[in-house]
């Protein structure tokens, strides 16, 4: 019981202080899970990051499910995940219930006219940073361009594109392996 509560509380804190999403909160997760509570070793933590990269869903959610399962089974997995998502859930509900109605106000409208280009800049910046860390080669650039074309002009679903690309990549590498 005490362990479950500690797990819940750690991940509640992680959920509450993850601002900007993604990798900004890795140091916090690492401190709670590896350094303070010894729930995972450093190596296990790196493994989880690798898994989080190749599975869908937010890193915080993936980590919390994994740690919870490892420490306290299915119950632990659910409690940790609940802890991670509860702060966001509460904060967003408060915002949408109490503040969203003010959007019609002319000053707020001006604020949003300024904010919209900022959102656009943040996403362009994510593209830039991702492209930089990916060490792009010609095939990857073609893959990315094909994706953009299929989304914007062919109106293909992202799900279909992900499935096609993963299957064709497996077929390609499997054939290459056979030749060697």
């Amino acid at each position, binding site marked *: 019981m005490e362990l479950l509560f500690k797990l819940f509380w750690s991940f509640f804190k992680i*959920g*509450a*202080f*993850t601002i900007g*999403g993604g990798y900004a909160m890795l140091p916090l997760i690492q401190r709670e899970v590896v350094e303070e509570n010894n729930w995972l070793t450093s190596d296990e933590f790196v493994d989880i990051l690798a*898994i989080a990269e190749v*599975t*869908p*869903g*937010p890193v915080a*959610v*993936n980590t919390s499910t994994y740690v919870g*399962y490892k420490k306290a089974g299915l119950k632990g*997995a*659910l409690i940790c*995940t609940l802890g991670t*998502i509860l*702060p*966001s*859930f509460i*904060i*967003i*509900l408060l*915002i*949408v*219930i109490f503040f969203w109605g003010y959007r019609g106000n002319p*000053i707020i409208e*001006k604020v*949003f*006219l*300024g904010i*919209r*280009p*900022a*959102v*656009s*800049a*943040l996403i*362009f910046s*994510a*593209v*830039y*940073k*991702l*492209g930089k860390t990916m060490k792009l080669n010609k*095939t990857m*650039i073609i893959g990315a361009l094909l*994706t*953009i074309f299929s*989304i*914007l002009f062919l109106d293909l*679903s*992202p*799900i279909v*594109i*992900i499935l096609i*690309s*993963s299957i064709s*990549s497996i077929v390609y*590498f499997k054939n290459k392996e056979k030749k060697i």
Partner: protein
Amino acid sequence: MNILKLFISFLKIGAFSFGGGYAMLPLIQKELIDVHGWITTKEFIDILAVVEMTPGPVAINSATFLGYKVGGFLGSVAATVGVVLPSIVIILIIAHFLSKFKSSPYVSWAFTGIRPVVLGLITSASLTVAKDAIIDIKSFVLMAILFYLTSFKKLHPILVIVLAGVVGVFIY
């Protein structure tokens, strides 16, 4: 009925949101704007701005927010549960068979193919958002400056949005 549709939409979004929050934007756009018409593109961008400024993973925040807009409190619960459920199930399976999963070449082959797609998905999201956000020269210049500050000066996203809001009041 809408609640069930909302749940299924976010289940799909959760299952295919590789590479972090932004990569799922085109999927959210498709499901909520194009297919169901539950929100407009402008509302979507404004929601993104709020999501950027509040703590928590982008996927969870957007699900709660969009779920509430479409179906009230129940909608927000349905969307949030829907978006995390695929992660939970997948991680539980992996945690159970970790060693097998890690050594499978098929997994790494598949992801070699998915990585450029993620980049393409985020780029198309940024183009769609830009189409509605960049309405004149002023907003274009603002966007360019903020892009520079976030990409090269590592300005915090929260500061970027607050700054942009203040600038908006002065230039419009």
